[in-house]
């Protein structure tokens, strides 16, 4: 479900991948993180195209058996492509560096170069940062004449997807190098800024493919991603998305004026006749070749995705997560061949639904009772810690969970580590009394099912927790529930204190309690809590949040987006759902019901 970004880092390696949705292929390239290989994207595109073209027949005709039986002897082709890519990145290295004066002379030709630059197509810029860029810049100076005007055609019209993607990659690289050049140049030349910039332009860009006007525009749209990491994390698709709303920059004006209804009709029309004919059984196969099932493109999906994104945000999903979700759905569907009876909307909705269910599925077992039984067998108490911001319902849900545990026959010790809030200890004492009244010791073999361990106010929470756990071990309690004070995620000393409590006591389960009413804040809360826990832990693998308790679920009708935001950010499961303020209001999460509520119109 995280298909939006196409790169992944693990230890010393970075992986980039590309999906081919038509034939269900994944291309992955791995390289060392410290190397910034700029030809990786092009390499993966080339490999994808060659592989697909070479083995297209096998995919189409033979299906799974073809895949299993076929020998895909792609090694030679791959080595060749790799060599080409590497060479194209080194080709300009041996050029002699020109001095600044010499390049000043070329300023006279800057004007004519600026115009023609827009037409020059993808000449790849693959350099190792500064050194390479300077040398390449001189290459660019030396070859203004090569700017073939004939290339004006493809870049303006036709293969929009490929070229514009590369063009934008180009522009970003130029931006990046320009910035680097500035840094390099400051020490060398005392010339005034404006002249410096002009002088640098011809050096840095290898005859980029944009005139100045186009460039100014790209600054505004792609600046954000260019800053972060222009080569690796830049996602040309989002930039393309912006361009769609451009006043007909590269696309025809007619496209802009289409509203989505028309567009859907356009797509449905080719699919409808094929659908009619498809009903005639045997003729369908032949006609499929004639009519062709529609394969999804970005433009088809964008309006639908926009609507879906707004819908999700209206359902209280955090904004950035809605965006990322739609991105990953788009990536997964791009190029996929649609069936005959399906519209774009239904395909996108289906894919989004699957992604949402996948997010809510737990990645590990969610069975607290089983783990408690395990701990029981080893004669040690099972420790659960509750953390969260102020007022989310930690103490209330702690009481509900202890009620549930008692119902299942486990004895509970409540550790009152909230030494700050007025009345916190009394609140827990009242709960203990009521629970004991509900489950008197006589009905459980003479032992008190719930007991409170408290040391009053103002003491150190971590110390109280440690004492409570050893007390539970001595007395033979099955579960220890540790209640902590609510704290804002920005409050550094309190977060340190919480991290210390968790690091020192090593609880079996760290539960983050979050309310379902929270919106975009959920992302911030969880990220900062996890960060604090990771930063202040001495261990190699720090204890992070293990599960989420979603509270006040009865107050939202179907705006259940908070569940999605929280699980997306942490990839940890929602262990409990609180649906009210009495002891019985504890539920477990039903992924399908939540997703159904989310997708409801």
């Amino acid at each position, binding site marked *: *479900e995280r298909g939006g970004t196409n790169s992944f880092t693990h230890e010393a390696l970075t992986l980039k991948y590309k999906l081919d949705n038509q034939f*269900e292929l*994944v291309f992955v390239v791995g390289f060392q993180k410290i190397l910034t290989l700029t030809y990786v994207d092009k390499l993966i595109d080339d490999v994808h195209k060659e592989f697909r073209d070479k083995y297209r027949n096998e995919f189409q005709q033979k*299906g*799974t*058996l073809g*895949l*299993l*039986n076929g020998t895909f002897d792609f090694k030679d082709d791959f080595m060749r492509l790799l060599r080409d890519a590497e060479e194209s990145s080194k080709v300009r290295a041996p050029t002699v560096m020109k001095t600044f004066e010499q390049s000043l002379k070329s300023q006279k030709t800057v004007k004519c170069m600026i115009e023609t630059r827009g037409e020059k197509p993808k000449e790849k810029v693959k350099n190792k940062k500064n050194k390479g860029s300077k040398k390449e810049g001189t290459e660019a100076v030396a070859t203004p004449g090569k700017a073939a005007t004939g290339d004006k055609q493809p870049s303006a019209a036709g293969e929009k997807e490929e070229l514009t993607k590369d063009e934008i990659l180009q522009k970003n690289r130029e931006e990046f190098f320009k910035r680097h050049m500035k840094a390099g140049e400051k020490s060398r030349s005392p010339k005034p800024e404006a002249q410096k910039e002009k002088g640098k332009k011809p050096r840095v860009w290898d005859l980029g493919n944009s005139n100045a006007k186009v460039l100014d525009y790209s600054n505004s749209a792609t600046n954000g991603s260019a800053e972060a990491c222009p080569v690796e994390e830049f996602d040309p698709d989002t930039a393309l998305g912006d361009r769609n709303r451009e006043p007909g920059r590269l696309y025809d004006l007619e496209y802009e004026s289409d509203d989505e209804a028309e567009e859907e009709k356009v797509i449905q029309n080719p699919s409808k006749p094929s659908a009619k004919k498809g*009903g*005639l*059984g045997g003729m369908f196969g032949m006609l499929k070749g004639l009519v062709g099932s529609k394969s999804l493109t970005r433009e088809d999906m964008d309006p639908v995705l926009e609507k879906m994104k707004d819908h999700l945000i209206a359902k209280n999903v955090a904004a950035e997560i809605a965006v990322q979700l739609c991105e990953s759905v788009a990536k997964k569907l791009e190029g996929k061949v649609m069936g005959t009876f399906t519209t774009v909307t239904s395909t996108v909705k289906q894919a989004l639904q*699957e992604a949402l*269910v*996948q*997010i809510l*599925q*737990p*990645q*590990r*077992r969610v*069975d607290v*009772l*089983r783990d408690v*039984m395990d701990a029981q067998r080893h004669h040690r108490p099972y420790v659960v810690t509750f953390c969260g911001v102020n007022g989310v319902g930690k103490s209330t849900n702690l009481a509900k969970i202890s009620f*549930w545990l008692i*119902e*299942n026959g486990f004895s509970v010790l409540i550790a009152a580590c909230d030494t700050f809030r007025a009345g916190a200890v009394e609140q827990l004492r009242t709960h203990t009394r009521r629970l004991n009244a509900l489950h008197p010791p006589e009905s459980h073999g003479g032992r008190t099912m719930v007991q409170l361990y408290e040391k009053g106010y103002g003491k150190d929470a971590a110390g109280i927790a440690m004492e409570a756990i050893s007390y539970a071990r001595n007395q033979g309690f099955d579960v220890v529930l540790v209640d902590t004070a609510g704290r804002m995620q920005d409050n550094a000393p309190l977060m340190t204190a919480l991290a210390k409590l968790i690091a020192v006591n090593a609880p079996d389960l760290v539960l983050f309690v979050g309310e379902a009413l929270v919106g975009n804040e959920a992302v911030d809360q969880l990220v900062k809590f996890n960060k604090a826990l990771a930063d202040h832990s001495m261990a190699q693998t720090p204890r992070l949040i293990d599960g989420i308790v979603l509270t006040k*679920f009865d107050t939202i009708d179907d705006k259940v987006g908070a569940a999605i935001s929280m699980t997306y950010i942490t990839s940890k499961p929602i262990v*409990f*759902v609180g*649906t009210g303020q009495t002891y019985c209001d*504890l*539920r*477990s*999460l*039903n992924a399908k*019901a*939540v997703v159904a509520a989310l997708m409801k119109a």
Partner: protein
Amino acid sequence: VIWRFVQGRRSSRKAVLLLGLCDAGKTLLFARLLTGRYRDTQTSITDSSAVYRVSNDKSANVTLIDLPGHESLRLQFLERFKAAARAIVFVVDSVAFQREVKDVAEFLYQVLVDSTVLKNAPALLIACNKQDVTMAKSAKLIQQQLEKELNTLRVTRSAAPTSLDGSATGGPAQLGKKGKDFDFSQLPMKVEFVECSARGSKGEEGDADFESLEKWLAKIA
């Protein structure tokens, strides 16, 4: 057209599903059954299906479907294919079993209490894979451990808090008989345990040791 639909419906339960945890060996088993050759496999992210012709020429064939074992994908794919299942092969990694027994049991429990599975009662084969490794546990041991674990799971799952829309998590179905320890014979479907090795004792070049698996498949078809 209508005839085609009817025929489709009749042959709708011809599938044999390969289920199991991640790295149990499902995809390699799938490849071996179909091609007889060893392939390097990766973690599956989508299902693969192909028609398998039974070896003793009964002109019967079943569709083998290999589903991904990853936690976030497995239930989704199970939903999609459970109605078409005539038989289920649950692949267990015999080497890592001790460590993973709880996860194995939980997945098996989820498969067994599923209402569609209970209604159709497809034949269940538990294939204890990776027997070529010396530390592999035997089928008998795996059976005993699974029975014990499922016994416990029955209790904990039905005691879990009810689900949001009211349906209980453990399903109203009670696995096996109440009051007695859980046994695989208490299930409405036929359950068998088989040992096999997808890789084969001679390593990658040799054949896989799964005659018992093939025999069972022949019986099912």
